[in-house]
């Protein structure tokens, strides 16, 4: 493992790749810290830049952006109570309360240290777990994959919204959109309606940019005041200090563990991890009364939990091609655009690249510490950039990015359609992640399902005859039963 890592680093680390990772990190922090730009949006808007670069330059840039954006999101969350990411929502509760007490810097530093610590722990887990898991996954064949995809989609439909039926509708709609284009087996056209641009399917990156970035601009436009800044942004307040950080070491360790666990589950990412870690820390806390009123422990738990889940979501993505959350979904799209098809064979075909990328993750994590401190000292005013001038510029970048992917205007139309669809879904309280992840996984699910059935003498029974898929099916049934019982209880209680 260490030898693989060393070999990967040796072949992959060039001046260009390190510089591009550093630039990506800086860009990610700056863009992620802009108010109203979520981490998913940041990665989606900046991803097209990497399509035309060599993989050894483009992918480090993207991983840098990814890591920077997730950290950058905590800056506006703490300073102006606008969580840049849903994953920073718990951070916003405690961090903003601390900022109002004049302890913004302590909150920002705690968030940085907890993020880096959680991330480091999880990256090490990623490095040591992924390859053995991929070796195991080589034993998977179509029936296992079919059930695994179904399992991931059901999980994400179940946990990412307030209603399972809406989550399921979102996932199924995404899978239906994923059917557009040519049938992978027979080559017949499906839902193409005479548009030759649709033969290759609905372009992924434009629809992602539309659903995440354009819908956000619509949401901002409907507010009475667009992005009003409240809170102390420039105050000079005391630093965190080593002792205050060290006091949270067990909270950080526990939350990181929870984050890794949650992130590894297919289909569940940092948004859930942050609340699980935050809730667990609150239940165990000796200073429970501080929660909600500005708890450094709460910031430490939420940030280490959500950042630990970030490398962990890469585990199901790299091993099975299943993105853990929406940012990973965008990342997966960018990996595929670079010709890297995630899955167990990835380690056999591109082992050096993957271990090189793991090295980049470790490097950017160390750099994040330095860049984060600079950002806390120098970048706080960036949250003052008015969203009213920012949003139109983001719109221009979105259009340019959507066009650049395939260099045609049809994709810009897909972006606009994605924006309207995303807006409608958000207003109707339909979660977007199931749609996006089903759009990505749909083709894989279709292939594995049809292959299983074609080669099975007993039809659908193949899924219960094989031990791994039968186990996954049992887990799936248990999850559905739990959902149903929870819904019935809620009804009885209501």
């Amino acid at each position, binding site marked *: 493992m260490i030898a693989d890592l060393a070999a990967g680093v040796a072949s992959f680390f060039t001046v260009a790749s390190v510089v591009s990772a550093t630039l990506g990190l800086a860009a990610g922090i700056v863009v992620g810290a802009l108010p109203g730009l979520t981490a998913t949006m940041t990665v989606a808007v900046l991803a097209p*830049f990497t*399509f*035309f670069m060599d993989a050894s330059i483009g992918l480090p840039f993207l991983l840098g952006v990814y890591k920077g954006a997730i950290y950058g999101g905590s800056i506006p969350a703490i300073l102006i109570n606008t969580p840049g990411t*849903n994953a920073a929502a718990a951070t916003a509760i405690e961090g903003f309360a601390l900022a109002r007490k004049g302890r913004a810097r302590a909150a920002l530093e705690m968030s940085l240290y907890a993020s880096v610590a959680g991330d480091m722990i999880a990256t090490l887990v990623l490095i040591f777990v992924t390859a053995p898991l991929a070796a195991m996954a080589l034993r998977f064949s179509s029936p296992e994959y079919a059930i695994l995809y179904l399992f991931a989609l059901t999980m994400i439909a179940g946990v*990412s*919204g*307030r*209603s399972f*039926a*809406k989550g*399921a*509708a979102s996932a*199924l*709609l995404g*899978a*239906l959109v994923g*059917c557009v284009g040519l049938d992978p087996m*027979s080559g*017949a056209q*499906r*839902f193409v309606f005479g548009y030759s641009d649709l033969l290759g399917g609905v372009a992924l990156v434009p629809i992602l940019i539309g659903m995440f970035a354009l819908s956000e*601009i*619509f*949401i*901002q*436009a*409907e*507010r009475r005041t*667009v992005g009003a800044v409240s809170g102390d942004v420039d105050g000079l307040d005391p630093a965190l200090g080593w002792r205050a950080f060290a006091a949270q070491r067990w909270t950080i360790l526990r939350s990181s563990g929870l984050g890794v666990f949650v992130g590894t589950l297919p289909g569940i990412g940092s*948004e*859930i991890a*942050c*609340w*699980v870690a935050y*809730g667990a820390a609150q239940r165990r806390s000796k200073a429970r009364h501080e929660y909600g009123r500005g708890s450094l422990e709460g910031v430490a738990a939420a940030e280490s939990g959500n950042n630990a889940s970030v490398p962990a979501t890469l585990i199901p993505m790299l091993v099975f091609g299943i993105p853990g959350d929406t940012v990973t979904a965008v990342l997966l799209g960018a990996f595929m655009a670079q010709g890297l098809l995630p899955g167990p064979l990835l380690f056999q075909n591109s082992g050096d690249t993957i271990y090189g990328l793991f090295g980049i993750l470790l490097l950017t994590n160390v750099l994040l510490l330095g860049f984060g401190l600079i950002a806390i000292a120098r970048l706080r005013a960036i949250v003052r950039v008015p*969203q*009213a*001038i920012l949003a*139109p510029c983001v*719109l*221009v970048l979105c*259009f*340019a990015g959507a*066009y*650049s992917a395939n260099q045609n*205007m049809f994709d810009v*139309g897909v972006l*606009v359609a994605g*924006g309207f669809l995303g807006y409608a879904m958000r*207003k*109707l*309280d*339909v979660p977007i992640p199931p749609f996006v992840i089903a759009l990505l996984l749909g083709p894989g699910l279709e292939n594995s*399902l*049809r292959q299983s*059935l074609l080669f099975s003498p007993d039809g659908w029974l193949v899924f219960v005859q094989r031990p791994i898929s039968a186990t996954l099916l049992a887990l799936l049934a248990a999850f559905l039963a739990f959902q149903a019982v*929870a*819904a019935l209880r*809620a009804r009885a209680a*209501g």
Partner: protein
Amino acid sequence: MRMACHHRRDPSRLIVGAVALLAAGAAVLALSRRGAAWPPSVQSAEFFPSLVAIGLGTAGALLVVQSAVGLPRAGAGDPGAQEGAAAEARGRGDVGPVEAPWRLGAVMLGVLAFHAAIGPFGMVVASVLAIAVLAPVLGYRRWGVALLVALITPVAVWLMFRRTLNVLLPTGWLWG
């Protein structure tokens, strides 16, 4: 809190359910017009989309039924406290009423107009117009800054794509 409040009907379920049913119906219609046998065989291109459409229709029907029997808003008595809180935070802000419908309408029209303008005017000119118009619509009042940003950003984006990525953004047929 009064009990009735928990049992308030949630109109979004009905709307989403109806849309899901319609989409499923449209998909089945589009698939069946190709004259394939029913139920479609595993080999046929219609097999997987039909399964998805059936699932979508079922989810839609479930939502319509839920809305008819007045299911309480999920999350009210959720046993998983963190998940409830997470869902709460996630939904907050998006689902509320549209506070500035005229501005939303103007921005939506602006986005459509921007899309339509790229063909004739090219990316740079259309972007200048988009920023110059949308920033004031969104409530930005420093005209000088808005104009400067409107002029600089599109040129910077154009150069960035042209020079570093070698992508030629649309130049506009109006200019030949």
